[in-house]
């Protein structure tokens, strides 16, 4: 071993970059698998957004922190959406799942956008209220749950 | 790890220095304790490569510590031309311990030209570059 440190780190580096490449290339499983991951990621994001909204209503979170949290959640959902969008579904069943997933994720994004608008509007005006946004997110969460169950049931 | 068939070396007058163990890759400090470079290689007064060494030839002595491009060639192989070697003469070395101390200032040495260039062309031109942080 004492003589190998010259080669060992080099191998480690090469291995490291190789594995990084593999990871970045994405472990493309089947459609339902990718949809399941997307649904999980998005439901984590939506749940985060709901906590942030509730804390905002309770006066525990500053507006900057709430809107940043909502932005992060929206980014997460958008990432999931573009992953699902890029899936190439071969069978009719897969296409169904893909379409349904896109619809659900669309709802999540809409809910998050509404929440952002509500927080930015600071009560009053025509923007949706925070409570409305929370209801929309709750509905989106349910839809995600159904999607997850459906994909997992396969 | 002294095997029985090895002859013990008779005590010699003067300090022993093993190149790898005590000199190579050691930090070189000037007489003010400012780092100058590391010992990238060493230059000997002889012998000429490939020439038979006649019996009784006096042993070669250390001429200089080397630095600069010789580090690259020592790592990756090859050999820079003698004109591109940057030398610190052995007579300027004051002490060899955990570091190699020089008896001269680092400012005038060839070994520090890159440092001087970066200092004069870049760092000294940024405001506060001469500010003493202490």
């Amino acid at each position, binding site marked *: 071993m004492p003589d190998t*440190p*010259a*080669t*060992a*780190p*080099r191998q*480690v*580096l090469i*291995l*490291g970059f190789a*594995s990084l490449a593999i*990871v970045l290339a994405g*472990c493309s499983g089947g459609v339902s698998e990718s949809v399941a991951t997307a649904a999980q*990621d998005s*439901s*984590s*994001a939506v*749940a*985060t957004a709901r*906590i*942030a909204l509730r804390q905002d209503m309770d*006066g*525990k*979170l*500053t507006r*900057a*922190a709430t*809107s*940043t*949290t909502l932005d*992060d959640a929206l*980014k997460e959902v958008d990432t999931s959406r573009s992953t699902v969008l890029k899936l190439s579904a071969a069978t009719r069943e897969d296409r169904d799942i893909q379409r349904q997933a896109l619809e659900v994720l669309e709802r999540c994004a809409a809910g998050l956008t509404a929440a952002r608008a509500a927080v930015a509007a600071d009560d009053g005006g025509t923007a949706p209220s925070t409570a409305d946004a929370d209801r929309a997110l709750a509905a989106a969460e349910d839809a995600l749950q159904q999607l997850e169950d459906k994909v997992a049931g396969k | 790890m002294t095997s029985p068939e090895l002859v013990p070396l008779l005590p010699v007058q003067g300090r022993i220095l093993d190149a*790898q163990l005590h000199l*190579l*890759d*050691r*930090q*070189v400090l000037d007489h003010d304790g*400012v*780092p*100058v*470079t*590391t010992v990238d290689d060493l230059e000997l007064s002889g012998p000429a490569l490939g020439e038979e060494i006649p019996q009784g030839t006096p042993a070669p002595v250390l001429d200089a510590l080397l*630095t600069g491009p010789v*580090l690259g060639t020592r*790592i990756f192989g090859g050999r820079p031309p003698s004109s591109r070697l940057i030398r610190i003469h052995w007579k300027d070395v004051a002490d060899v311990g*955990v570091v190699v101390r020089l008896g001269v200032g680092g400012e005038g040495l060839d070994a520090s030209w890159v440092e*001087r260039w*970066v*200092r004069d062309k*870049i*760092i*000294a031109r*940024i405001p*506060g*570059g*001469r*500010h003493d*942080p*202490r």
Partner: protein
Amino acid sequence: MKRILGVALGILTAIGGFVDIGDLVTNAVVGSRFGLSLVWVVAVGVVGICLFANMSGRVAAASGRATFEVIRERLGPRAGLANLSASFLINLMTVTAEIGGVALALQLASSVHYLLWIPVAAVAVWLVIWRVKFSIMENVTGLLGLTLIVFAVALFLLKPDWGVLAGQALAPAVPAEETAPTYWYYAIALFGAAMTPYEVFFFSSGAVEEGWTVKDLVQSRINVLVGFPLGGLLSVAIAGCAAVVLLPAGISVTSLSQVILPVAEGAGKLGLAFVLVGVVAATFGAALETTLSSGYTLAQFFGWSWGKFRRPVQAARFHLSMIICLLVGIGVLATGVDPVLVTEYSVVFSAIALPLTYLPILIVSNDPQYMGKHVNGRAVNVLALAYLVVILVASVAAIPLMIVTGAGA
């Protein structure tokens, strides 16, 4: 009295300085996915970093030589360069992650997009390195980082079921939703977050910066042995908060905003203010340390003049290399890569690269030529060898686990 103050200050700085973006993110991710079932890794990591910092601090104090000088002297130029390349790249990755962390925390405080904060953060880091005295820099960021104690406060205010948390911590098991490889992958990530190599570069170079002698060893030992474990408790509190608030909601942490939600839940707006100050201070402090570390490693390998105790003109290449590192960090972040993702990779690569710095320090701390009579004692050596095994196993296992788990996805 002054001495006690000095010790107290050192300990507080060590606590505040222990947590960086790697600890924040990794502990929150782990807490939100595995509860407290990986707390034992934090304990293992804290003992490891105490041991490692103790050895490298002792080498620096006894011989006046910092880590990378020693690495090159002992490994020779070829292995030394390979070591330098790996350590330097990972360190650069950490610089990038920390600056990104500062920017993300500032976004949470201001709602101005983090990409706009990145140049501000980087310039601020550079200005501090350029102008501010080493000890002031250390103490201010360390003390402000102490506000992260709000994680522990929030955990109490959340009134969790302590029995459940203790059960998770004391009888670790892989949660049903996660797989064993993922569990071990995050174990390595946590280990890497606790034992980041830059901490050691910085610690040993800092000892030279502050002109430590053997006399200061006692104080350094106290700082490390008290400060780091308390810092480790902060890490556990971060994981605990995530385990109490985020895990039941099915949230797995992917952004910094999720890390701070439990604090707001438990401690409200005041807690939020504290945690934001703490995160900015901790990541800013770590950005300073990692940036300096990149300068230290290069300068020590090539024998350049280095150190914040010198005027910048007296350490020109050292300062130039740090400026370049900061510019590279800005460049990487400007591509829009997620700083949290960079962090998650940097802690794992830290674990992979750890043997490269650990082994030479272990060897030199036994060498009387450097250490005089301050060589490792027998107990330290036994522990250090046990850790060598742990570190090697983590390093070797990291890449396969990264591939198998898709980097913990």
